[in-house]
């Protein structure tokens, strides 16, 4: 039996599980979380089976279209629900289901005290299903179904603890900002339909090189906008920090490993379109470069451990975006970095969750310190992630990030110099802030109240998390250590993706590769060393120092919220209030005015009917005379 045709089960299993959990309600509280884990695991197994089967095929046969049913047969536009099983989508499916399953397991323990754990798992399953639709879809329309589906799951999970109004607001903010990006996706699809008469990958990609550049640029730019929304890229990055309101497993799965990378997936998947439009490619690269620095700078100043990780996620996706914006040479590396990042970042988030678990849900790193003594497993797994992200060989991140930096130096004109430099500098800053996080949390002096010292704050009793939490962390840490190297051997990953990204001849960067590599490592070590000096070797103040202008700006997310508020929200609120007033006072008022005007005239005319018969006679006489004048005048 051809398991590829069973690909729909990948989606169906978690979806059904989610529906069951939601519909059964309290009745499934006792076992609901295990059903969730099981569903995710089943999908993961199926994904691996599919992967194995694909590997068994020749490179050219590794693409299969699985037609399910006609979804929107609307005459001119016909969209079928079909799955596209190819190396790229299967790679994602593995990442999603495998990391997803680990995080499910982790969450069983992490959420064990929450009365709504069942609902949490329902949402997680829903997310897995939607994310799989996103990556397996064979058309932009179906991709959009998954695209918004993950947005919904993200909304539900960020607002999982919505009895806290701030969290509810954060959830809404995420959804709405995503919607702004989705607008781009919609416009892109509109333009595709206007240009190609279809929105499925086959037709669009097949006809892309014959279409005009104008249309392609529009589509490309709109896809970049969509990607910005989903992947928290500049200028739609503001929601990601707030999204940390969700439970930590959510941050790990959705806001680090999978959903936020969907934008990169979208651009890589749309490669044939971007090939026709250098403008859109350049914009994607610039967006990636800007976000890369933006996230890195913000990450340096935050004290909230999850927010640092969020900023780092933004920054790392900036790398991927940059790579994707470089065109075919970058696609495979973007995905490569995406995969390794999925492992090490998820691992670090879980580690952060473990720290919070042990520290009474404290997130302020200034209240941590020296935790390595109390949480050995967390410390070691986190260290693997840390080394991976800052790009120390031979950890995973080194392999993937280094390739991106090299690619950034490829090209002509000013671009390689700018992008390359940004990527290099970014690597250095990354090393600084991630080391800062690592040292502030696990090293240095303890800055929390252990009941013996006289530090402020509630008493903390740090402890290692249960096995259900540590095992996933260990697995992810192994990935963080070895996955990058493993996939680099013989360029196996790049070759594997070639059916999708296309084969690319090797390009020479503008600088020799060894120079780039050495510079990178030097910068990384410099950044890490700086962090060591400041946050491990010397004492970290419990209260944040005032800091420089840049620090204060970075703490305030470079004033992203202030800008959004000033440019969009305030005027929007004013507009809304004005319109509400206008609606009652002017639009409705005009109608009411017509009514009262009639009444007024009635009252005035009433006075003519004064009860005096002589005046009635006068009115009549005037009427007669008037009519006579009018009639006779017609003959004059």
């Amino acid at each position, binding site marked *: 039996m051809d398991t590829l045709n069973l690909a729909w089960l990948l989606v169906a299993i978690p979806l059904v599980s989610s529906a069951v959990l939601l519909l059964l309600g309290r009745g499934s509280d006792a076992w609901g979380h295990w059903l969730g884990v099981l569903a995710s695991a089943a999908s993961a197994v199926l994904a691996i089976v599919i992967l194995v089967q694909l590997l068994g095929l020749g490179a050219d046969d590794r693409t299969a279209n699985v037609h399910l049913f006609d979804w929107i047969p609307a005459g001119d536009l016909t969209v079928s629900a079909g799955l596209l099983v190819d190396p790229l989508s299967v790679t994602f499916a593995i990442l999603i289901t495998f990391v997803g399953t680990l995080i499910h397991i982790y969450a069983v323990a992490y959420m064990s005290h929450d009365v709504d754990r069942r609902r949490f798992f329902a949402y997680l399953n829903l997310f897995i299903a939607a994310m799989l639709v996103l990556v397996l879809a064979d058309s932009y329309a179906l991709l959009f179904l998954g695209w918004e589906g993950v947005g919904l799951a993200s909304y539900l999970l960020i607002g999982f603890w919505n009895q806290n109004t701030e969290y509810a607001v954060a959830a809404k903010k995420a959804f709405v900002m995503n919607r702004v990006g989705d607008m781009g996706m919609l416009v892109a699809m509109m333009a595709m339909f206007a240009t190609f008469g279809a929105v499925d990958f086959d037709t669009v990609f097949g006809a892309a090189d014959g279409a005009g550049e104008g249309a392609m640029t529009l589509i490309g730019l709109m896809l970049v906008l969509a990607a910005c929304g989903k992947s928290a890229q500049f200028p739609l990055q503001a929601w990601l920090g707030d999204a940390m309101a969700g439970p930590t497993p959510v941050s790990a799965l959705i806001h680090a490993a999978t959903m936020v990378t969907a934008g990169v997936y979208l651009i890589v998947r749309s490669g044939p379109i971007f090939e026709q439009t250098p403008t859109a490619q350049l914009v994607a690269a610039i967006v990636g470069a800007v976000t890369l620095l933006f996230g890195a700078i913000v990450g340096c100043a935050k004290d909230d451990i999850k927010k640092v990780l969020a900023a780092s996620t933004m920054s790392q996706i900036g790398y991927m975006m940059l790579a994707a914006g470089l065109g075919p040479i970058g696609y495979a590396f973007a995905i490569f970095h995406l995969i390794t990042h999925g492992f090490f970042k998820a691992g670090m988030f879980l580690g952060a969750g473990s720290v919070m678990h042990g520290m009474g849900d404290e997130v302020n790193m200034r209240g941590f310190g020296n935790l390595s003594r109390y949480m050995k497993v967390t410390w070691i797994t986190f260290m693997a992630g840390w080394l991976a992200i800052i790009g120390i060989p031979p950890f995973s991140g080194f392999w993937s990030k280094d390739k991106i930096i090299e690619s950034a130096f490829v090209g002509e004109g000013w671009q390689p110099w700018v992008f390359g430099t940004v990527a290099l500098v970014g690597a250095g800053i990354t090393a600084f802030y991630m080391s800062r996080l690592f040292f502030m949390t696990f090293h240095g002096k303890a800055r929390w109240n252990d009941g013996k010292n006289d530090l402020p704050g509630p008493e903390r009793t740090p402890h290692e998390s249960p096995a259900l939490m540590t095992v996933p962390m260990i697995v992810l840490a192994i990935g963080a250590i070895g996955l990058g190297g493993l996939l680099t051997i013989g360029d196996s990953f790049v070759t594997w993706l070639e059916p999708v990204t296309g084969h690319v001849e090797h390009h020479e960067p503008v600088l020799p590769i060894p120079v780039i590599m050495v510079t990178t490592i030097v910068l990384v070590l410099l950044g890490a060393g700086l962090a060591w000096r400041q946050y491990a070797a010397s004492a970290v103040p419990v209260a944040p120092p005032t800091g420089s202008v840049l620090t204060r700006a970075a703490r305030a997310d470079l004033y992203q919220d202030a800008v959004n508020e000033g440019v969009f929200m305030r005027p929007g609120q004013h507009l809304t209030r004005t319109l509400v007033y206008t609606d009652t006072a002017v639009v409705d008022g005009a109608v009411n005015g017509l009514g009262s005007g009639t009444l007024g005239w009635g009252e005035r005319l*009433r*006075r003519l*009917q*004064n*009860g*005096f*018969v*002589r005046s009635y*006679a*006068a009115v009549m*006489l005037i009427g007669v005379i008037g009519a006579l004048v009018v009639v006779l005048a017609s003959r004059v």
Partner: protein
Amino acid sequence: MSLVNYLVLSGILFSIGSIAVLTRRNAIIAFMGVELMLNAANLTLVTFGRLHGDLHGQVIAFFVMVVAAAEVVIGLAIIVSIFRTRGSASIDDANLLKS
């Protein structure tokens, strides 16, 4: 004498009659104004009868006189009953019904 003079006279009578209706408060006099108007019309009819040289005009005038007489009967009955009720024949007093 030109027949036009009769027409002018009837016009004057008609106007006097209508002005009487408009200006006089006493119901009887107002009513007489109406009668004057009717008779002005009669005069016109008779004049035109003469002008056209047929009898229709005069015949109509006779009809009108009968009708006017009937109107007087009704009118006086109404005015009298109102006068008995209110002790006044002023038509301006009767303005309970208005607006």
